[in-house]
Every structure is written in structure tokens, then in C-alpha cells.
């Protein structure tokens, strides 16, 4: 059983294109998810209002079902309705790329909402008390005390989430998107060399994953340099939760 290195060398340009697409999917869906999750997480942490419960339904739905089903629902399911097909959104929902982005954004926002909520609830109450005591309004407390601290607390869990999102993008290949996995499968179809290619893309995913983890570690260290070596409370939501 020989290992076809020549094939890998030849395939590199296409594979790198695929990698670009994978990174694109991750880099676009993650920040948008975060932007959505911040207000949602704040509402969730603020107390038991109907809004909080509604958001809980949303996060329960998206965290309790597989991402693949969510993707299929959006890609195949929505196309069942002629109302969707004749609407403005069809320009986007027509493409696997946008459907994937939508599914990824909704999914990561759901998980991140819970991470944000947990982080906010874990901000030490003493600081909040002190801020209120000196007369800061609620909004000001939120902006200057709670959120910065919460951000610091959620960073480890959030880095986990970003890594998981990177892995998750490979299912976009199932709806015609030419990400790294999609490109690999097309090359395999022509060359009949599954092992060479899967091992190569596994290595590429590994490299990117550890690049991301390293970047987050740098960021964490920078944000926590005032804490010395005190460990931060690990959050249950964030700890190695996959999709």
C-alpha cells in the first residue's frame, strides 16, 4: 500500500482553495453569532422574563438537535414552500453557501448565548455592588463592569466554541459547498485515493485548530495578566460541549 505523495502535491492548490472557504465560513459565522448572542445572553441573565423564556426555547431547540438536521431544514426544507421561492430571500437561500452560513450563525448564536449568560452570572457580585454603590446606572454597570469581566470569563469556553465551529463547517460539503472536505471528496472521486486525501485534510484541520487555540491562549493571557496565576472558574456550559 503506497502513499501517493505526488497526488497530494498536485491537489494542494485546490485544497488550499477549499481551506479558504472553510475559514471564510468560520470567520463570518462566528462574529455574527457573537453579535447576536450578546444581547440575547444579557436578556437571559437579567431574569425570568417572557423574553428570557422565549430565548431559552430558541437555545434549547438549536442545542438539542443536530446541526446537520438544522442545515437540511434550511437547505431542503425551506425550498418546499413556494412562498419562500418567490420571496426576496430566495436569492440567498438558493445557494448552499448562504444556507450554511445561516445554519451556522443560528447554531453558534444559541450556544454562545448560553456561554454569555453563564459568564455574566459568574461575574463576582461584589464588583457589581460596588459599582451600584458609587451611583452607576444599570446600563453603565453593564457596559463598564459586567461585560468586560464576563468577556474575560467566557473566553476559554468561547475559544472552544470557535474551534467546534471550525470542525462543524465540514458538513457544508453535504450541501454543495466547496469547503476543504468538499474539495477533498471531489478529488477522491477522480483519483480513488481516499486515505491520502483524508489524512491530508485531517492534518490541515489540525493545524488550523491549533493555530486558533494558540491565538486564543495569547488573548486570554493578555486579558488575564492582572490576575497572576489564579485559575478562572470553568464554566459548565463551555466545557467541551460539542454539537
Amino acid at each position, binding site marked *: 500500500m503506497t502513499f501517493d505523495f505526488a497526488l497530494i502535491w498536485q491537489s494542494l492548490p485546490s485544497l488550499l482553495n477549499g481551506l479558504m472557504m472553510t475559514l471564510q465560513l468560520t470567520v463570518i459565522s462566528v462574529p455574527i453569532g457573537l453579535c447576536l448572542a450578546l444581547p440575547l445572553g444579557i436578556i437571559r441573565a437579567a431574569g425570568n422574563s417572557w423574553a428570557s423564556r422565549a430565548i431559552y426555547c430558541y437555545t434549547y431547540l438549536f442545542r438539542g438537535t443536530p446541526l446537520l438536521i438544522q442545515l437540511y431544514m434550511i437547505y*431542503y426544507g425551506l*425550498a418546499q414552500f413556494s412562498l419562500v*421561492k418567490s420571496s426576496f430571500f*430566495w436569492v440567498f437561500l*438558493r*445557494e*448552499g453557501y448562504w444556507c450554511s452560513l445561516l445554519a451556522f450563525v443560528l447554531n453558534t448564536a444559541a450556544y454562545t448565548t448560553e456561554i454569555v449568560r453563564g459568564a455574566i452570572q459568574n461575574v463576582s457580585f461584589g464588583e457589581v455592588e460596588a459599582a451600584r454603590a458609587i451611583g452607576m446606572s444599570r446600563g453603565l454597570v453593564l457596559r463598564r463592569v459586567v461585560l468586560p469581566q464576563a468577556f474575560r470569563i467566557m473566553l476559554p469556553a468561547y475559544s472552544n466554541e470557535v474551534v467546534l465551529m471550525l470542525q462543524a463547517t465540514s458538513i457544508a460539503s*453535504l450541501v*454543495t459547498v466547496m469547503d476543504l472536505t*468538499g474539495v477533498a*471528496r*471531489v478529488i*477522491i*472521486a*477522480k483519483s*480513488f485515493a*481516499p486515505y491520502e486525501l483524508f489524512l491530508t485534510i485531517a492534518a490541515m484541520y489540525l493545524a488550523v485548530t491549533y493555530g486558533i487555540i494558540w491565538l486564543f491562549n495569547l488573548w486570554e493571557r493578555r486579558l488575564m495578566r492582572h490576575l497572576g496565576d489564579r485559575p478562572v472558574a470553568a464554566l459548565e456550559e463551555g466545557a467541551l460541549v460539542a454539537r
Partner: protein
Amino acid sequence: MKKLSILMSAAILALTAGIANAGEKIVIATEGAYAPFNFVASDGSLQGFDVDIAKALCEKMKADCTIVKQDWDGMIPALLAKKFDAIAASMSITPAREEKIAFSDKYYNTPAVIVARKDAKITLGADGNPTPDSFKGLRVGVQRSTIHENYARAHFTGAEIVVYDTADNANLDLTNGRIDARMDDILALQEGVIKAAGGDQYQVWGKGYVGGELGKGVGVGLRKEDTKLKEEFNAAIKAILEDGTYKKINDKYFTFDVYGGPTS
């Protein structure tokens, strides 16, 4: 039965290559997502032209056959990994595939065509088929790892080739308007698009393509070392062609002869 198997479900069968015994066991794989050639019926069983032909061949070979389902782009790797012994899934005989596996003689050969909306802007060239330029800027859907994908990539420069796991998914996207045209076997497209819901908006464009990347017809895929099995299959194919079994199966599904003349 399979569902009740637990963790240690590795069945070890020791087979030396190419044993020929009466009542030998052959496992044949088909895709199950390529009507009318192979599909899953509502009772969960595999049916279709390929399946019926495979069963007829086994009867002639007096072999005990099991038909299993395998996803298309894993067909050849799974055959080589000995998950089964033969492929009867409308797999065309091409030089590229013949580098990895062997084929029996062909058991049918039908042309490939383009199917698109009736109001699509496709011009037919002198050969009766759409000109390659017609596809500039159009999205053409094909199944991954098929002769149609290879043909489309080679000839329809300027088109965006969109690949799918299964022909069914590609057909679905055609009727949903996500792609503008489909290239596949004429009978598969008739069954999957034109006869399906909403199919009246679509038509076959052109006379059909043969040859070149499209191969020399469909054969039964086998491992290269199973030479005895190949001989058995070839003899069985000749037998069913001669004694009318082939015609019976042909007529069950199609209104014309799909064998396509002697192998050219």
C-alpha cells in the same frame, strides 16, 4: 439482524480469491438512489433494473446473492476494502475506473443527456446537442464521481459545475431552481425529473451524448483479482441475453431496448 449486532460485529470470512463453488455467496452492492435503475421502495427493499439484472445473473450462476446498499462515491473503495464482491449500480466502464477495478461485459448502454427548463436559453448545435457555449454562466448539476461530472468538467467550460452526493439531491435542486441544468443518464432523468412533480416544466435538450468520458456502457464492477467471478458474470450475462430473461426485465422498466447494440 444487522441492527441487533453489538460492538464486536466484525464478521471474519476467510476467502481465498476466486473460489468457484456452486451455491457460492456473493454480496452485490447497489446505490439505491438512482431510479429506475436502483432505488429504495417504500417497504425499505432495494429494487430497480440493476437489482433485477443482478438477481437474474445470480440465478444463472447458481449463486447465493445478497444485495446491499452503498453510497455512490464510496463504491469503489468499499469494493476494494472487500465490503462486497460486485457492484451492480449503473457504473459505467471507463479507463480511469479500469485502473482500479475490473468490469464484466456491459449489460446496458444508454446515452447521457441534459435536462433543463423548457424556457432555458440553450442553443442546439450541428450535432443535435447543446453547444458547449450554451452553458456559459449556467449552473450544471451532476453527481460526484460520475462520468457525467467528468464530461461536464471537460466540455462545458464556462459553466459552474455543482456536484451532489446523489442524483436525487441534484434533481431536487433542479426542480427548486438552485441549478439551471442537469446532466445524467436519459432514463434516470426522465424518472427523476420529468415524470416527477413539477416535471412538466423541464425537457430533455439534444439527442444525447455517448462515448469519450462517458465510457463504453454499464458493467458489473469486480475486483481485479476475481477473474473467475468475472468469467461467471460474463457467461451469465450472455445467457440472460440469449434466453429472453434480459428482455423481460428490460420491458418491465423501459419502452425500448437499453442494451445499446454490441459493445463497440
